[in-house]
């Protein structure tokens, strides 16, 4: 089999500029590039958006959002967490007032039942899955809910292959079964939740047999999961993008959270909710306020006291309303109300659903400055390109992982050429736009953040070093908090218990892109073990596992279309069409196909996906497109 290597990117070593979009880039001095960038941004004040980076440090994200809010006077700041886990944050904060996963990795080693829902952690989060395996080896029973029988699912006591986009029916049926079997935790519901009666009425129609019809999973299997989860003394519910990358991702998250409220599997050691983050600092980017609705420390912009605190700390005025999220910014480009973008370390030209549309919209911008370590497809659209350092190996700072653990990132290698650290570059631009910020180093940024974010206050660099990372919240420099969140829900004293967690009253809403005679196959997407996102990072090492992009079909479909492994076929959705070779995977069933977005230069899968967004979180429905497969007139076999 031919080992197809994806495009190999070379580091940017000098600033690049061009006078018009028709011209090629030319090398420029930092002085020229920064001046041009400052001018481009200055003339678009009021129509500006910042794409911050979920892969850069907390410190960079802090400075980037401060740049947007203080220098550009806007809350239009967001990052690619929008394309993956924003629904988790939205759903968790709606229920608990805080957007973080509630448990720690270690707890899953000491739990009794583990539910992996829409998560192939074995491939996408291998080291988290080692903690799961420890749990399994220690006697925990794992249940997997996933359309595909993934490597993760192969470890399960029971795998349930539901139809794509039927997570809510499944969750509601589990909820109903728990209630009807008398397994709901009434004491917890009474004390710590609200809206139970409405929830009970909501799920009542979702009998096991109706759920079997809608999800395709046998009623007995759903019942078994319901009973196992409810009867467990401790249980962990984990999910990934199979839940969030839907047009109703936040609703999906709420439906899962409901199950934890019903059973009291939250707020205790070993019991909790664990959304697995896709990028190294998705959690931290949001925590630092690089999102349109929160200030650093996940503090709500709409809260006047919070605004006041930041206004006095930053000597500025903060817009008293939410900014645009990434999805809305793209829509605003189309409308012409967003004209300049400062894009740091993101590659939306390839990572957005319906990527052709995203590129078209960015071309309409008056000014685009891209700060990256590579000349990505997005950078190719820019007016000014600023060469940066690699956050994880060439920069000091911190990142925050899926268990809310803030950990130190350290500079190990010297960046190439004239590449500079993100924070330096942002500060240079800020200076040119009238704000003279002085940060001696990343620690100085961090200490400023600590002073405005109570949840981070206790985390000095020294303590982070000493404890190999600390989980938030950490309000004190002397103590550590429990490893799980929301223990308050179990307090006897109502005052200490705080706001009860509301059940989410969410309805089933099938995928937007319906399958029909013309587009009979459901395409879902995901990650492979050795590759990552658009392949810019992962494409450079010689992975023996890598075989390039394929459209994966089940054996029955391959036979039906008369295609064999390696044969190129036309894959067409209502939005676009690509040619991809066929791979046959027994983990799939008839009518279900799988692709990744790891090799966009080879097969641009996101030409097929639909930009049907979650109205709450703005995440697109990457997980459910309708496609058709056509045999090419002349068979080409890729070997």
């Amino acid at each position, binding site marked *: 089999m031919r080992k197809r290597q994806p495009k190999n990117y070379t580091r940017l070593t000098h600033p690049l500029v061009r006078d018009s979009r028709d011209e090629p880039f030319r090398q420029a001095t930092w002085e020229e590039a920064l001046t041009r960038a400052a001018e481009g941004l200055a003339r678009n004040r009021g129509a500006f958006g910042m794409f911050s980076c979920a892969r850069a440090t907390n410190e960079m994200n802090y400075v980037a959002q401060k740049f947007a809010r203080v220098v550009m006077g806007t809350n239009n700041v967001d990052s690619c967490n929008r394309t993956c886990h924003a629904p988790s944050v939205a759903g968790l904060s709606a229920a608990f007032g805080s957007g973080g996963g509630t448990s720690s990795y270690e707890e899953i080693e000491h739990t009794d039942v583990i539910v992996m829902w829409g998560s192939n952690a*074995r491939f996408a989060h291998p080291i988290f899955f080692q903690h799961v395996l420890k749990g399994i080896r220690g006697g925990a*029973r*794992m249940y997997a809910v996933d359309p595909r029988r993934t490597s993760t699912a*192969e*470890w*399960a*006591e*029971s795998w349930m292959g539901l139809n794509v986009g039927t997570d809510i029916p499944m969750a509601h049926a589990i909820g109903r079964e728990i209630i009807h079997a008398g397994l709901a935790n009434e004491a917890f519901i009474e004390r710590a939740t609200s809206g139970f009666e409405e929830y009970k009425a909501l799920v009542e129609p979702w009998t096991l047999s109706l759920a079997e019809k809608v999800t395709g*999973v046998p009623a007995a299997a759903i019942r078994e999961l319901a009973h196992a989860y409810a009867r467990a003394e401790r249980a962990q519910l984990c999910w990934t993008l199979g839940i969030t990358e839907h047009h109703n991702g936040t609703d999906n998250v709420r439906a899962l959270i409901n199950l934890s409220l019903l059973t009291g599997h939250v707020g205790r050691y070993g019991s909790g909710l664990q959304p697995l983050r896709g990028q190294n600092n998705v959690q931290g980017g949001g925590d630092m306020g690089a999102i349109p609705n929160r200030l650093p420390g996940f503090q709500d912009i709409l809260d006047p006291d919070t605004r006041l605190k930041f206004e006095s700390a930053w000597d500025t005025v903060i817009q008293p309303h939410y900014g645009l999220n990434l999805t809305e910014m793209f829509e605003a480009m189309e409308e012409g109300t967003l004209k300049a973008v400062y894009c740091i370390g993101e590659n939306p030209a390839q990572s957005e659903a319906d990527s052709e549309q995203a590129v078209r919209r960015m071309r309409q911008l008056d000014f685009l400055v891209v700060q990256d370590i590579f000349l990505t497809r997005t950078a190719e659209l820019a007016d000014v390109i600023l060469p940066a350092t690699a956050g994880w190996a060439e920069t000091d700072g911190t990142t925050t992982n899926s268990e809310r653990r803030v950990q130190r990132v350290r500079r190990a290698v010297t960046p190439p050429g004239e590449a500079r650290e993100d924070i330096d570059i942002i500060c240079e631009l800020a200076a040119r736009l009238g704000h003279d910020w002085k940060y001696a180093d990343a620690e100085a940024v961090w200490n400023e953040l600590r002073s405005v974010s109570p949840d981070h206050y206790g985390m000095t660099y020294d303590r982070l070093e000493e404890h190999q990372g600390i989980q938030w919240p950490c309000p004190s420099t002397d103590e550590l908090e429990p490893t799980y969140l929301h223990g308050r829900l179990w307090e006897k004293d109502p005052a200490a218990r705080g706001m009860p967690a509301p059940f989410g009253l969410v309805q089933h809403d099938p995928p937007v892109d319906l399958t029909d005679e013309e587009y009979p196959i459901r395409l879902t997407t995901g990650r492979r073990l050795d590759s990552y996102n658009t392949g810019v990072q992962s494409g450079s090492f010689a992975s023996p596992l890598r075989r390039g992009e394929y459209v994966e079909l089940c054996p029955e479909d391959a036979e039906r279309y008369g295609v064999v492994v390696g044969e190129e076929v036309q894959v067409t959705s209502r939005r676009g069409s690509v040619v991809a070779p066929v791979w046959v995977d027994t983990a799939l069933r008839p009518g279900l196909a799988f692709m990744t977005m790891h090799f966009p230069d080879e097969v641009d899968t996101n030409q097929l996906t639909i930009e049907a967004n979650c109205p709450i979180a703005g995440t697109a429905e990457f997980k459910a497109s309708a496609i058709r497969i056509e045999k090419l007139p002349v068979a080409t076999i890729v070997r």
Partner: protein
Amino acid sequence: MDLHFGDSKPTDDERAAVDALLGPPESSWEGADRSDADLRWARGGREARDRRDLLLPGLHAINDRIGWISEGALDYLCRRLTVPPSEAYGVATFYAMFSVKPRPATVLHVCTDLACAAAGASELCAGIEARLGLGSGVSVERSPCLGLCERAPAALAIKAGDPVRTAVSAPATVHDAVLAASAPDSAPEEPAAAMAVPQAGDPSLVLLRRVGLVDPSSLDDYRAHGGYTALRRAFELGPAGVIREVTDSGLVGRGGAAFPTGRKWQATASQPDHPHYVVCNADESEPGTFKDRVLMEGDPYALVEAMTIAAYATGAHKGYLYLRGEYPRALGRLEHALAQARARGFLRDDILGQGYAFDIEIRRGAGAYICGEETALFNSIEGYRGEPRSKPPFPVEKGLFGKPTVENNVETLVNVLPILTMGAPAYAAIGTDRSTGPKLFCVSGSVERPGIYELPFGATLGELLELAGVRDGLRAVLLGGAAGGFVRPDELDIPLTFEGTREAGTTLGSGVVMAFDDTVPLPRLLLRIAEFFRDESCGQCVPCRVGTVRQEEALHRIVQRTGAAAADDIALLREVGRAMRDASICGLGQTAWNAVESAIDRLGAYE
């Protein structure tokens, strides 16, 4: 588990062999055709992973049917049992009787070990190979002791198929062995087990009392000869009473370690962890030992009854009988005996109407001496490589499947029957104060009447050899097998008791008494012993894995040397031997130097 499988597919025969053991696959994930239901719901997890112990039986099933284990067959078995192929490969390559490379359907194992070597095994082997020639469809393999020493030289033919066929040729001639290999079905019947018991019929016998008198296939005949009176007595005494009797009898293990059986049973019975298991170690592989084979072939129900008593006393409901892979006739007799016992209510639920349930499963070894080590045997049953575990924890606490386990040798277990029927005091009156009861000795080599002898503890080596008709020109006697030690012809007054042999600086071991006359070149004999240990070392610990190689190399160098010319290598042997004895994980490495050392020090082998 997310196992990885290659592209190789099993043949229909291989699939049928596995399915015959495990039943047809239940879902496409296990190898059946894909169904809609499979693509919506799959079961797995703990239950699927818990079938690991069927790996060894599965490998046997394939090897029995095909003669070797192909990639496709191994993958299919792994898929059925949720076992990683790499681990299954590690297990398959651990055992000498399996091959992962193609070979002829018939394998002729020709014993080249001590007794057979002295009886001309190498000439026999050469003759067979010459007669068969190339492309004969028979693979001739030199084998460690086949446990047929009373009829040396011996050969065992195994012809794969459905069913697998076996034939023993002993004493073997080139003609007989070739016949057995080419047409095992028409090979002459083996002589009765009683032929290995020169004392057969002697009314004073205790352990061998029934051998030759009862029909080994008949449960009724067994009962007519006093069978199952001991179990009835056990139920009267209750578990604690049985343990008291066994303790009071002074019975100690007959497998070589001589641990007090009553204490072992008591320790297992008192463990709070459950379930408890009883394991019978019938992996008789010590070169020169064949007593367990004769017992199992000649009086199989006795072992079934004895295991039932052991289980009852220690609170076990499941027993495993780990039988040497090279004992096809014992396997047949025991399988038949178990089926009869089950059919007649002597096994399974409500034994003798006492409300007590117990059953026995036979597990076949596959050619690994190390699996006679008690913890290696557990690993072998569990479907892992037969590597010894480190102790503590001891089996009584964490044994088979990590549960409290009492493991006894065949001879030890069979002693329990007379203890219960005659009572502990009467039993303890046999033998000496510290070595009570009767003992079986496996006499072979330079004697007129080789075979199994039963004597009360305390008889001297000379008396035993006299009984067996020792031939003239005696040069040395090997006591205890390859792991034992040599004594000189002038030491025949050594009393055959644990304390007597210990005082004489040697060992009783498993009861091997092998006589060598002065025509046998001693250095060659020692080299064969060293080869044996090098072959049989599991490879887990350094002292044994490399030490047995260095020992063999040194013995090779001095095979023709004496005196000063051998002195350096003898010094080297002593140093390596001492480290093997001190630092090896298990008894194999710890004893691998015993026989060589005794030959140097006692016999003056290189003087």
